[in-house]
C-alpha cells in the first residue's frame, strides 16, 4: 500500500525529487559528454535510461552516483549537493566479475557492505544469510565468486548493494551479459525487491523491452553530446508479468515509439 501511495506521488509530481540533475554539463578530456541535462527522479520511482552505445548512459549514472562531479550545473540528492559517493546510493555494475572481491566468499562479499556500515560482527551472519536468501543464493554462502555462474555473481552483487540499505539503486546494464532466461528471472526479482524496499531506481539498459517492462518512466538519450531526446511515462499495471505485460497494447505502442526514436538517433 505504501508503495502505491508513493507511486501516486510520483505520478502527480508532488514529492521533491530524490535525485535532481540541474543543467548538468560534463566535460572529460576536452570532450563534452553530457550537455545541459536536467532531470528529476522521484522517491520510489523506477526510471529507465536507454540510448545508442556511447551516448553517455554510464556517464549519467556515474554523475548520479557521485563518482563524477559535473563541470557545470548541479546534481542534488534529497536536496543536498552530491559531492562524493554515499552509502545510501548503491551501484550495480555491469561487469560483476570485476566488482566482486575474488578472495572473499559470497558471504564475505556481502559482509563488506555491512562492515562498511559499521554493523558488529555478531549481527552480521544473520543479516548475510537473510540477504543471500533474498537474492536466491542461500546455499552458496561459502562459494567464491569464481565458483559461481554469471547470473549468480550478479545476484551476489545485488545482495551486496541491498546490504547498503540504499535509498537509491543505480543499475548499469546489470543483465547485459546474461542469457535471456536468467535475465527475465532477474528482472522480476529486481521488481519485487524494489517494491519491497521502496528504493528509487535508475536502470540503464540497451534493451528497449526491458526498459518498458521495468520502468515507471523511460528516457532516451541522444548522443554527442548526451542529452534527453525522448521521455515516456509507462502506464502499465503493476505487478508486471512477463507474458501479459509484454502483450499489452500500451507496451507495444511504447516499444514502437522507442524503437523509432533509437532508429532515428542511429542515422
Amino acid at each position: 500500500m505504501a508503495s502505491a501511495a508513493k507511486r501516486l506521488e510520483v505520478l502527480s509530481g508532488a514529492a521533491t525529487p530524490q535525485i535532481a540533475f540541474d543543467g548538468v554539463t560534463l566535460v572529460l578530456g576536452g570532450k563534452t559528454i553530457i550537455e545541459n541535462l536536467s532531470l528529476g527522479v522521484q522517491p520510489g520511482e523506477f526510471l529507465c535510461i536507454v540510448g545508442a552505445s556511447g551516448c553517455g548512459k554510464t556517464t549519467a549514472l556515474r554523475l548520479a552516483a557521485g563518482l563524477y562531479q559535473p563541470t557545470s550545473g548541479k546534481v542534488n540528492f534529497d536536496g543536498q549537493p552530491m559531492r562524493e559517493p554515499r552509502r545510501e546510493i548503491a551501484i550495480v555494475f555491469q561487469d560483476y566479475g570485476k566488482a566482486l572481491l575474488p578472495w572473499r566468499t559470497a558471504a564475505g562479499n556481502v559482509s563488506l557492505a555491512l562492515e562498511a556500515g559499521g554493523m558488529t560482527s555478531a549481527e552480521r551472519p544473520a543479516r548475510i544469510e537473510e540477504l543471500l536468501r533474498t537474492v536466491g543464493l542461500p546455499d552458496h554462502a561459502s562459494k567464491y565468486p569464481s565458483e559461481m555462474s554469471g547470473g549468480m555473481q550478479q545476484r551476489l552483487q545485488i545482495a551486496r548493494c541491498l546490504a547498503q540499505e540504499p535509498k537509491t539503486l543505480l543499475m548499469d546494464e546489470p543483465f547485459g551479459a546474461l542469457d535471456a532466461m536468467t535475465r527475465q528471472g532477474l528482472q522480476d526479482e529486481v521488481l519485487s525487491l524494489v517494491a519491497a524496499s521502496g528504493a528509487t531506481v535508475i536502470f540503464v539498459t540497451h534493451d528497449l523491452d526491458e526498459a518498458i517492462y521495468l520502468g515507471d518512466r523511460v528516457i532516451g538519450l541522444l548522443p554527442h553530446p548526451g542529452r534527453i531526446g525522448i521521455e515516456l511515462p509507462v502506464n502499465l499495471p503493476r505487478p508486471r508479468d512477463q507474458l501479459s505485460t509484454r502483450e499489452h497494447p500500451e507496451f507495444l505502442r511504447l516499444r514502437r515509439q522507442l524503437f523509432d526514436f533509437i532508429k532515428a538517433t542511429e542515422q
Partner: protein
Amino acid sequence: MNRAALLWRVASFAVAAGFVALWQLIANLKLVSPVFLPGPDRAWASLVRGFSSGDLWSKLAGTLEHMAYGWLAASIAGIAIGAIIGSSRRMRTYVAPSLEFLRPLPVSAIIPVAIAMLGLTQAMALFVIAFGAIWPIMLATIHGFAAVEPRLYEVARSLQMSRLAVIFKIALPSASPDILAGMRLSLTVALILSVVCEILAGLDGLGHWVLLSARAFRSADLFAGVILLGVTGYVTSVAMSLAEHRLLAWQAAQR
C-alpha cells in the same frame, strides 16, 4: 596424487639417490683427495656428531635468526614502501626511475659501505640482509598495488570505506599473490646474504662454521654445513609455498 605425479616423484628420488651413490663412488675410489672431498658417509657422520654435540644446532639457529630477522625487516619495510609507491600513480612515475637505478646494484657493493658505517656487527648483517631481500618484495608490492581492479576502488567509494579499510580489505588482499611471490624469492636472498655476512663478519652461524671448517681442512664438517644450508633453503621455501597455498586458497578456486 595422480600416477604421473607419483612417477615424477619416484624419478626425482632415483636421481637424488644416484647422485649420492656417484658421490660415494668417487670418494671411495679417491678420484679426489679425501682432504677435499669426504664421502657422503663421512659427511653424514659429521652431521650426526655436530647435532649430538649441539654445535650444529647453535650454528643453525644463528643462521636462521639472521635470515628471519633480515627477511622480516625486508618484508615489513618492502610491503609498506611498496604500498605507498604502488597506490599512487604520481609516486610511481617519480620514484620508479630511482628504483631502477638502485635495484641492479649488487648487494655485494653495499657490504663494504655497511661495514664502514656499522662495523662487523649484527646490525650490519641485519642491514645487508634486509637491503638485499627488500627488492623482490617491494617491486612485487608496487606491481600488486598498481594492478588493483579500479572497479573495486569505486565499490569502496560507494561504500564510503575509510582509507585504512580500503588498504586492508581491498588493496592488500588483491596484491597478496604478488607480495607472497616476492617474499618467497627474497627468502633465498636472505639465506645467501646471511651466510655471506657470517663469513665476512665472523658472526655465529653456518657460514662461519663452513669457513672455519674449510680453513682447518675438516672437509666432512664443511660438507655437513653445506648440506645443512641446502636443507634450510629447501625447507623454508617449502614452508613458504605451503603458507602461500593456504593464504591463496581463493585463487585455486579461480582456476
